[in-house]
């Protein structure tokens, strides 16, 4: 295990971990984060997702659907292979760190 800190924050780790389960709507992802106590404004959330897209860790696209006669576009996200790697690295780092700390204790 590398001793270097992972290149993603714990919040991004949470996002990528959730995306490992499959592609989701931005709205649902935001709800999931809110459930975990992370409340962000719409703009702040989509800025974070934009950065993850720019870094190539997630892929985003618009999904169109009609709800109650209105055409609604929604941003959906899926994790990329690079995202999976980053997530795995972070997972390994935290697991090893935790194991070491708790074994010593």
């Amino acid at each position, binding site marked *: 295990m590398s001793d270097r800190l992972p290149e993603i*924050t714990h919040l991004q780790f949470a996002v990528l971990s959730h995306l490992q389960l499959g592609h989701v709507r931005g709205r649902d992802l935001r709800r999931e984060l809110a459930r975990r106590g992370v409340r962000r404004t719409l703009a702040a959330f989509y800025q974070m997702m934009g950065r993850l897209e720019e870094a190539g860790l997630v892929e985003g696209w618009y999904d169109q659907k009609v709800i109650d006669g209105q055409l609604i576009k929604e941003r959906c996200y899926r994790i990329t292979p690079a995202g999976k790697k980053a997530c795995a690295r972070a997972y390994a780092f935290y697991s090893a760190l935790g194991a070491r700390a708790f074994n010593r204790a």
Partner: protein
Amino acid sequence: MRNLAIRLARRLTPSGAEAILEPAIADYLSGRAERPRATGMARAAGGIADAVAILWIALDTQRVFRRSRYRVSDEPPGRSGAVLRMDDVRQAFRILFRRPAFAATAILLIAVASGANGAVLSVVRGVMLKPLPYSDPDRLVAFWPGQFVSNEEIGYWRDHTASFAEIAAASPGWMMSLVASGYEPLKVTGERTSGNFFTALGVRAARGRTLLPGDARPGAPRVAVLTDALFTRHFNRDETVIGRTVVLDGEPHEIVGVMPPLFEFLRPDTDLWAPLPFDPAAPNHRATFSEAFARLKSGVTSDAATRELRDLAARMRSDLGKPQEWGQTLAVQSLKDSMTAELRTTLLILVGAVGFVLVLAAVNLATLALNRSMERAPEIAIRAAIGASRTGLVRQLLIEHATLAACGSALGLLLAWAALPIIVARIPPEIPRQGEIALDVTVFLTVLAVTIVLASAIAFGPILVMARPRMQFVLRQGQSTEPRGRVRALGVLIAAQIAVAVVLGIGAALMVRTVWNLQHVDPGFRADRVLTFRLQTTSAYRDFSKGLTYLEEVVERVRALPGVQTVGAIQHVPLSGYNWTATVHPVEKPPAPGAAVPRATWRFIGWDYFHAMTIPLKAGRFFTAADSTNAPPVVIVNEAFARREYGSAQAALGRRLRMSTGRGTADGEIVGVTGDVRYLSLDVEPGAEFYAPLAQTFMFPMAIVVRTSVPPEQLAPVIRRTAYAIDRTVPVAELQPLETLLADTLARPRLLSLLLTVFAGAGLLITMVGVYGVVAYRVRQREREFGIRMALGATPGRLSGLVLRHSAMFAIAGIGLALPAAWFLTRGMESVLFGIAARDPISFSVLPAVVMLVTLAAAWLPARRASRIDPVVSMRGE
């Protein structure tokens, strides 16, 4: 509005930030689409809320985008994304209170408007919007609203319909004497109800029990349930009252329970409830004196229930022997709607008026904001020059206005809280649910939110103009004429204020004239120097000869008092709200079989009633002592009746009428015709009426009418003593001058008129402040121009004329906007107006003239200043 906000949001967003804005807006809209679709006003309000939310997202996008662009790994973990931070609010306070006069004016404006809104919304919510305090109130419906029905009809519906879980009834306005040992005898107003009255409403007693279905069975022990008010007022909340037997209208009744404080049904003046026995053998089984209501079965709609009733009507007509026209209007209506139907127009007018005052205050705030933008132009331009983004400036200015609005509305709500008891004290007592009027959290938050959103939204336009700083203009230190856009925006805002003031003024003028007309309508009698009271005789006097002897003694003794001129009696005095009707037709003109028999109001009177009330005799004679119990039956009709049946007063004399009251059918000869009297209400034209002499009718607790030669209040104590000296157990109730009763009937239009006048006055004052502010500011801006004009030979009169002409242009534009709006809006007031058209040409011409004068008066001081400008001083800056 939503699409407009999206377009505006896109324009506000710097390039590169679309990747944040677009999914954020899509996310918001997707959330909206998942909620149920609103309709009507809620939809319009939702549109405004969407627009505000989208603009907020745009501002937030700006904020997060402007932050330094971290690498993905530098994302600050868990940092709050709040759009509004305490720093912003602190800064807003600092900036605002640098100019305390501006802040104080703006806060006061908003306070007045939101205070008025808070008070009126509290009343509207308490009376009209709160759910009824009954179990599952949405399933309760008024049964044939506006019609009284009989026990026979209720029984038929119970047996033949399937839509209703319960059908119950209450017969209101039973005046009774209440005698309990150890307490003064008291006249109370009771409701006789069906046994399932309380179970249908799904309510429980606060103490003891409510009436139960078994209590209305013939021969069941007599019981009564008290209101909390009577329990407090008369019995001093003595718990031992429950289970005690009191004498109610001469019959012993056991008090079985006391209802909770806020419980009332349809009218607030009820003191107690007692069962109305459901007895097909009783003579009053077919008497129509109950108001029915029902609880719909689960899943049944009002429309379906109405259809069922209408389908049943034909069979019911034939089974119960009803005339052909009976049941044509059968319907059910939500109980809450039927309770507030009569008040809805009045309350909506008030909500509209206070809404206008709020809009006026918000527009005024926008005007002040725009004015102030000129003063703050250097500051804003410098902030822009050192890197502040336009969005950031807009955001800061919006926060400043929202802060002002929040301070103003908080102060206003304090004002509303203080004013509410004063308003409630002036509300006429017949208005239901007054106990539920309170400035509660819902009203508080609604007013706070609406004020902040409205004030910020209206200020948004000027703020956008303001946040476009022009360095060139700043460098010239304002020594130029201001940008045209701002001048135009100021003009529009002032014209809008004038328009709102004119609309409010016209509404108030219509109501003031309505009250004036009502005060000057001829009621058909003279109310001055007349004292009235009721003798709520008990069953001890039910025997006619005994009752008449008692009344005769009271009348004789009262007549002998110094200061008394004449004394008369009637079952209910005019304008007391009671109206008895009977079917009546000329003997020689019987109605066709199956056709409805004409109806008329009937009254029985005694002694010198017509003289005491000064009701004129148009033909024939009044009743005399000779029209006694054993004499041939006689009647007196009013002019409306004589006209309807015979064409004229003279033609009616000597003709015979066949009258069917609840007590049987009888014929009588018309011996006189009197003038018409407005018995029901001052705004209702008198209908056909006939009078019978008390001696030829039956015993009933009577109202005594005393014409005095001294102020009537002076005689009240001595009359009470005189009546009690004859029989201490008969309550002397409603002892008051007739003029008080007359004034009480005007309470509702008078209150509406007063409130509208206050709002219109506030509107005019706000407009005057607005006009003054703008004109004074424009004169300041044009000082140099005026100096040059003066140097070139313009006279002071010409310059002040120029300023006044500009102000008059604002007023003309505002009036031009207002007249079509008022033309449309006053149509909604038609039902509360009397003796005046909703499009009254006088109100529509005088009010604009008044507003024009007020505008010119507000502009006069700045105009005077313009005429005194010294050309040398004004041009020294060059």
